[in-house]
């Protein structure tokens, strides 16, 4: 046995951190995880109305917005996805790439993982003012995010998400086209199949236009807390958030609810994975 240990010490295998989070979304936004190569991930997400609307609206459950999404892992590093939201009748598409993976052993190791996500969002609501000349490009907004994550231990993972949202068009000259935000999120595992997650995006006072606000008028920072419950091929995410939308531009920059005044939406994401391609190479 000693001989075997000596042999294996000579060529220590690189060991990548796996399962930093249970699924590719933390709550509203992306986590460091990707769908594995050849895996299709169907995402069904709902946000109900605000709980402080009282019994008449059945504490928000009478209203709902949803997003239907499909993600696919092209390789173990690259994932793409598309989705449609009822909120603003949006279509969205994204690409997500793992730049660096947390690892130990091997020739060099990395204490963190880094991924980049770029999302394009298309609002297809009817034009606000059909009398003026409207351009198709005015419907587009973009979001670029870096995700820097570390799995500190089996039970604790944290990530930082520097983000930038770009609007091709905004309604006032005092509103910036580019909005910068820093997100922070993490999870604490409560048991093998249950974890507590939190996610917060803070809009940064970077692009101040004409001395005015750096946020969209009347908006708040996005906060979400929830649980991930894993059962075989499904991950259920149940959460409370002040954001209505489920795309980057809508939750980072267009959140109107005040979490601490009870403008909270109950919501859930259901993720179901389908293996399209066998992971193992055919013999």
């Amino acid at each position, binding site marked *: 046995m000693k001989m*075997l240990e000596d*042999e294996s010490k000579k060529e220590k295998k690189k060991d990548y951190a796996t399962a930093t989070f249970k699924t590719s979304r933390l709550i509203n936004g992306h986590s460091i995880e990707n769908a594995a190569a050849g895996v299709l991930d169907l995402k069904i997400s709902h946000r109900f109305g605000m709980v402080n609307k009282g019994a008449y609206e059945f504490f928000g459950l009478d209203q709902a917005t949803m997003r239907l999404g499909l993600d696919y892992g092209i390789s173990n590093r690259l994932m793409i996805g598309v989705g449609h939201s009822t909120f603003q009748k949006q279509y969205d598409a994204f690409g997500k790439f793992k730049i660096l993976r947390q690892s130990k052993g091997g020739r060099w190791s990395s204490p963190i993982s880094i991924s980049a996500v770029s999302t394009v969002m298309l609002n297809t609501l009817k034009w606000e003012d059909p009398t003026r000349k409207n351009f198709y490009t005015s419907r587009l907004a973009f979001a670029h995010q870096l995700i820097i994550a570390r799995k500190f231990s089996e039970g604790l993972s944290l990530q930082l998400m520097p983000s930038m949202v770009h609007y091709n068009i905004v309604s006032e000259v005092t509103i910036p086209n580019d909005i910068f935000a820093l997100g922070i999120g993490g999870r604490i595992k409560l048991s093998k*199949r249950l974890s507590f997650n939190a996610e917060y995006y803070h809009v940064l006072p970077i692009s101040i236009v004409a001395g005015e606000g750096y946020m969209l008028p009347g908006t708040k920072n996005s906060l979400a807390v929830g649980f991930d419950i894993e059962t075989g091929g499904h991950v259920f995410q149940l959460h409370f958030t002040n954001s209505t939308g489920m795309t980057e531009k809508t939750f980072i920059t267009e959140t109107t609810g005040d979490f601490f005044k009870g403008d909270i939406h109950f919501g859930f994401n259901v993720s179901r994975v389908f293996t399209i391609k066998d*992971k193992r190479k055919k013999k």
Partner: protein
Amino acid sequence: MKKLFIVTVLISAAAFATAQSIVMTKTGKISFYSRSKVEKVEADNNEVSSILNTQSGDLVFAVLLKSFHFERALMEEHFNENYVESDKFPKSTFKGKVTNLATVNFTKDGAYPITVDGELTIHGVTKKVTSNGSITVKAGKIAAFSKFSIKLKDYNITIPALVGDKISEDIDLTVDCKYEPKS
């Protein structure tokens, strides 16, 4: 001087003989199967390290659990995360002895049935196991094969009731190693 020479020759001959009697592999195969009514779970590991001492019969295996690959990525994640907890227990080992080594003729081609006694460590739990298998000698090359089954319960691996009908309590293991002389 002459004496010293003879001693040196004897020592090096002895060293040569021991070196010859130890064969090893780093690309051995271990597969496991769990057949339940609902789902078939199988995984392969092609990076098994093993050493066999053909003189003493000592046989050892070391397996990195993260090197088991499954048909579905999610199965692999659950295997590592929830069942064998490979961050806590990265390696499984077996340390044992071929008990009927005398019946194996390593210099003659053929298949020889063997019995192996030893200690198997999975998920931090060590259990005594006895399994039957065979050693095949062909053109001087030694290969070992064995098939046996273990109970998850014995190694403190619990299957939640929710997926109880998808994962069998008995796991069949297949070991297939082709040895090379240790250089």
